[in-house]
């Protein structure tokens, strides 16, 4: 009981701390790949710190939902952080919700964020919410198929179970089904975290904005909460990807050594995945909005193939 | 005594009404006669329930549960129509229907024609189930046609004349086919019982010997009987006179034709059906009846879906119901006959109400065309409109109204007899007819107020409407045990075939 509580607090802190770091790393790597110096790895922390101290401007059209949205985004992301195994195969609170809970909690956050975007009454908010909801709802089935593939081979939707069974059967990650599922989930990751080629986190050109348009009216601490929540969400999805498919080094007991190993391997895997993301981002140009569904359809097909191949092999 | 009284009372009423001077006298004569007839009918039902069968006049008149049931239904319809007729014709008079016609017959003579012919008509209708001798039964049925022809031409319009002519002609042919059938039955019986016996056509005698009749003759006889009495009952394809007559006759007459005469014709058919199935076994008759029953329902469908006049709509509905009853008879089994007789009972209580509503609407709007009636009737005549909708649901056999019970029973009979395809068609037709009926009537009754003045309905009409409506609603939830017992024993008479 106590250990669970401690683990929960620890993991919460871990999530809150390293999530900006990861987005910082990604930014920097990207800059380097584009022959720029880049802001430096810690820039995200500075941003958050600055924003949290600023005063914020509330649009006069907004209602209490405008306040609720950032809080919910942040809270849901943080709660999800407690449900997934990061450095220990046994996620602290994985009993309280499996992968379905993860997906739907993120959905809850998105729901409020979209409402917040609509609440301002400006065209951008609506535009952002509309596109965000469209893309996410198209991403959902692909994501589910990929996840089901994993869940079925572990025959559980409980993420700790999934991780354990993944550890249990060595070389499983070489199975074609796992490969396909990984690919599908990777595309979903791109779409959900609003990265090129789906969305451009750096843009502020009205017509191409999706996520940015939705939060256009937010400023100060609320903006910080949203950014932070977004980076947490990104971290979570990445963790989901690496720990369910490549559960190397996940510590199965609470001994300090294995925890240390767990930390190390975890950061390493995150770094690799970030590089992958950066490569994809720099190698591609942003798609037109109405090409995105095609990409997600590809993801869906990959997921379906993954499912069928679990069935065949 | 009872049997004689049942025949004599209407006869006397006819004579009395013929000599009566004033309208009020005729009305009261008719009402009293109706009430008396109804009372005696109830008495007769009671006595048949106690002692299987009653007979009088040296076996000339004979009544078992089956005939008692038909008598009861006929007299109920007569009573209802007698009450309604008073209001109906008074409203006609106030609307000045009788003034504008060419041959300046004073209104009271017109009414005398109605008030004296109706009891005669009823008397003959009562003779049909009461006569033991099938020949006399035929005479009575033919008589009903003759008595009602001039009731059809009551308004003396060209259209009613046309209707009457078709009625007389088709009826005449049909009845002569019926007579042919009767002769042949007599012949096939005479091979067993010898000729020139007076009782040679007496039901009570025939039914005992039916098994030994000459088979081939019986087949031929039943074909003729089916065609003949089928014409009278308006089974397709002999139904063609019905829409014309029902739409042209005065509403009370139409109601009696649709609700009472139908039963008499079916009663005739029923008696011969029993003989035939005893002689040949049920299959032959059943197959024929299934074909004709389904045909009647099928014919009714398109005319109900696409219809211009609500009076004709009702006619097609009673063609459809005739088909339903015939089907019930044909499906046989323990439930078939019961379903048919239940349906007959409920139908002859529901149908007059429908005609009354239609009559009120027609008298208010001076037309029976849907197009000229611009909907929203509920505003001008709330009671009639509501009852009209109610009765439409009742007559299309939707629960909780009673006709649903009989239709469901018939359906079960069909499945018990493994008549799957007929059953499916049966339900399909029922649904389509429901749809057609409801579309028309709902459009007529509901809708925004077209601004027609609030209708003045005479109390007689109102009371007959409400009273009968109450009966219809109650029957949906409670069928008096004696009545059901009567129906059951009647069904037993039909069923002893098997």
């Amino acid at each position, binding site marked *: 009981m106590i250990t669970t509580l401690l683990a929960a607090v620890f993991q919460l802190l871990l999530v809150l701390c390293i999530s900006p770091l990861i987005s910082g790393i990604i930014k920097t790597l990207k800059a380097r790949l584009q022959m720029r110096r880049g802001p430096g790895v810690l820039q995200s922390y500075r941003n958050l710190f600055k924003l949290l101290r600023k005063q914020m401007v509330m649009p006069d059209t907004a209602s209490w939902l405008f306040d609720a949205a950032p809080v919910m985004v942040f809270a849901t992301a943080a709660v999800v952080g407690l449900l997934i195994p990061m450095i220990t195969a046994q996620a602290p609170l994985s009993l309280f919700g499996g992968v379905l809970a993860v997906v739907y909690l993120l959905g809850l956050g998105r729901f409020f964020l979209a409402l917040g975007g609509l609440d301002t009454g400006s065209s951008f908010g609506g535009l952002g919410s509309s596109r965000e909801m469209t893309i996410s709802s198209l991403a959902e089935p692909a994501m589910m198929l990929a996840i089901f593939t994993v869940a079925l081979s572990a025959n559980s939707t409980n993420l700790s179970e999934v991780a354990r069974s993944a550890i249990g059967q060595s070389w499983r990650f070489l199975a074609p089904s796992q490969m396909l599922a990984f690919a599908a989930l990777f595309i979903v990751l791109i779409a959900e975290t609003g990265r090129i080629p789906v969305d451009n986190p750096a843009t502020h050109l009205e017509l191409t904005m999706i996520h940015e348009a939705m939060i256009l009216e937010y400023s100060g601490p609320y903006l910080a909460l949203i950014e932070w929540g977004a980076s947490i969400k990104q971290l979570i999805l990445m963790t989901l990807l690496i720990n369910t498919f490549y559960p190397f080094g996940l510590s199965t007991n609470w001994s300090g050594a294995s925890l240390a190993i767990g930390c190390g391997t975890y950061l390493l895997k995150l770094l690799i995945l970030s590089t992958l993301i950066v490569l994809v981002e720099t190698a591609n140009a942003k798609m037109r909005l109405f090409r995105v569904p095609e990409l997600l359809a590809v993801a869906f097909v990959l997921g379906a193939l993954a499912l069928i191949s679990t069935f065949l092999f | 005594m009872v049997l004689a009284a049942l025949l004599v009372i209407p006869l006397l009423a006819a004579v009395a009404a013929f000599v009566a001077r004033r309208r009020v006298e005729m009305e009261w004569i008719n009402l009293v006669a109706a009430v008396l007839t109804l009372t005696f009918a109830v008495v007769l039902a009671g006595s048949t329930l106690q002692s299987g069968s009653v007979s009088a006049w040296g076996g000339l008149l004979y009544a078992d549960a089956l005939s008692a049931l038909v008598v009861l239904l006929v007299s109920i319809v007569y009573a209802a129509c007698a009450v309604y007729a008073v209001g109906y014709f008074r409203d006609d008079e106030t609307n000045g229907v009788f003034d504008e016609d060419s041959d300046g017959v004073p209104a009271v003579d017109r009414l005398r024609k109605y008030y004296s012919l109706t009891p005669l008509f009823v008397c003959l209708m009562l003779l049909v189930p009461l006569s033991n001798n099938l*020949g006399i039964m035929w005479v009575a049925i033919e008589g009903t046609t003759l008595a009602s022809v001039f009731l059809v031409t009551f308004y003396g319009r060209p259209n009613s004349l046309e209707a009457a002519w078709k009625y007389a002609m088709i009826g005449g042919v049909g009845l002569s086919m019926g007579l042919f059938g009767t002769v042949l039955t007599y012949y096939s019986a005479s091979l067993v019982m010898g000729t020139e016996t007076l009782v040679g056509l007496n039901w009570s005698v025939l039914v005992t010997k039916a098994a030994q009749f000459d088979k081939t003759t019986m087949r031929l006889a039943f074909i003729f009987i089916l065609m003949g009495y089928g014409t009278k009952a308006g089974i397709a394809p002999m139904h063609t006179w019905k829409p014309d007559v029902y739409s042209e006759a005065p509403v009370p007459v139409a109601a009696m034709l649709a609700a009472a005469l139908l039963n008499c014709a079916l009663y005739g058919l029923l008696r011969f059906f029993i003989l035939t199935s005893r002689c040949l076994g049920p299959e032959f008759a059943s197959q024929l009846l299934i074909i004709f029953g389904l045909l009647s329902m099928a014919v009714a469908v398109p005319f109900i879906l696409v219809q211009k006049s609500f009076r004709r709509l009702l006619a097609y509905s009673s063609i459809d119901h005739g088909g339903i009853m015939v089907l019930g008879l044909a499906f046989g089994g323990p439930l078939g006959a019961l379903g048919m007789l239940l349906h007959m009972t409920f139908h002859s209580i529901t149908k007059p109400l429908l005609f009354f509503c239609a009559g009120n609407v027609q008298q208010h709007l001076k037309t029976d065309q849907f197009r000229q009636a611009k909907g929203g009737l509920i505003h001008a005549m709330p009671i009639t409109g509501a009852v009209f909708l109610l009765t439409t649901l009742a007559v299309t056999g939707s629960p909780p109204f009673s006709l649903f019970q009989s239709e469901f029973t018939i359906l079960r009979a069909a499945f018990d007899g493994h008549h799957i395809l007929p059953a499916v068609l049966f339900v399909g037709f029922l649904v389509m007819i429901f749809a057609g009926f409801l579309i028309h009537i709902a459009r007529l009754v509901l809708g925004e107020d077209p601004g027609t003045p609030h209708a003045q309905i005479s109390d007689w009409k109102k009371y007959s409407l409400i009273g009968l409506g109450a009966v219809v609603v109650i029957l949906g939830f409670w069928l008096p045990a004696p009545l059901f017992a009567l129906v059951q024993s009647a069904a037993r008479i039909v069923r002893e075939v098997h």
Partner: protein
Amino acid sequence: MYFYQDPQFGERMITLMAAFVLVLQIAMVAQRWLVTNIRVFAAQSFLLASIAGTIAYYNHAPHIYIAAAMTFAVKVVFLPILMERLVAKIEIRQEIEPLINVPLSVLISGGLTMVGYVVAESFYHPEAGTTPATLGHNTLAVAISLFLIGFFMMINRRKALTQVLALLSLENGLFLAAISLTYGMPLIVEVGVFFDVLVATMVMGILVYRISETFDSMDVSKLRRLRG
């Protein structure tokens, strides 16, 4: 004993007269004058009456005499006179315009006669040698053919009155069947039937009159207001 007491002879006579009845029926289909039509009908009915008489004589069935008498009174005397009066009262063109032209109609009635025989043939069972059966076999065929032809005539005729006539001739077929098969119905039924025929004809007569008054023609094929 005299030849005319021989039942064989009687049967021959009956069959012969029945055949004549049939011939008259077809003649009625063929000819085209209203009054003639009525008279042919009268003749037919007379033959029927005599058939009834003959049967009554040979089978010593007194009540058939009554039937014969009634036939004579009603169908030979009363109704024809009534109808000729009616024709005179409403002065209409004498000619009958059938819907189907005469030769074809005659052919059709021939076919219908065939039908009658085909149907009646199945009734011939010599093993049951009772007179009605053997006698029935011939006359029933005639009766059915009479019935069908009369029916066909109703369809074929335009004028209201001629339809009535057709109906009556059709009922003659019934009568023939009744007397020849079963030596007539029970008396009371006979009386009732005759009464009905009488009333029916009068009722129809009145209708015919009113129709010709209202539409100034007796052509019932024009009565097509009520449809749908």
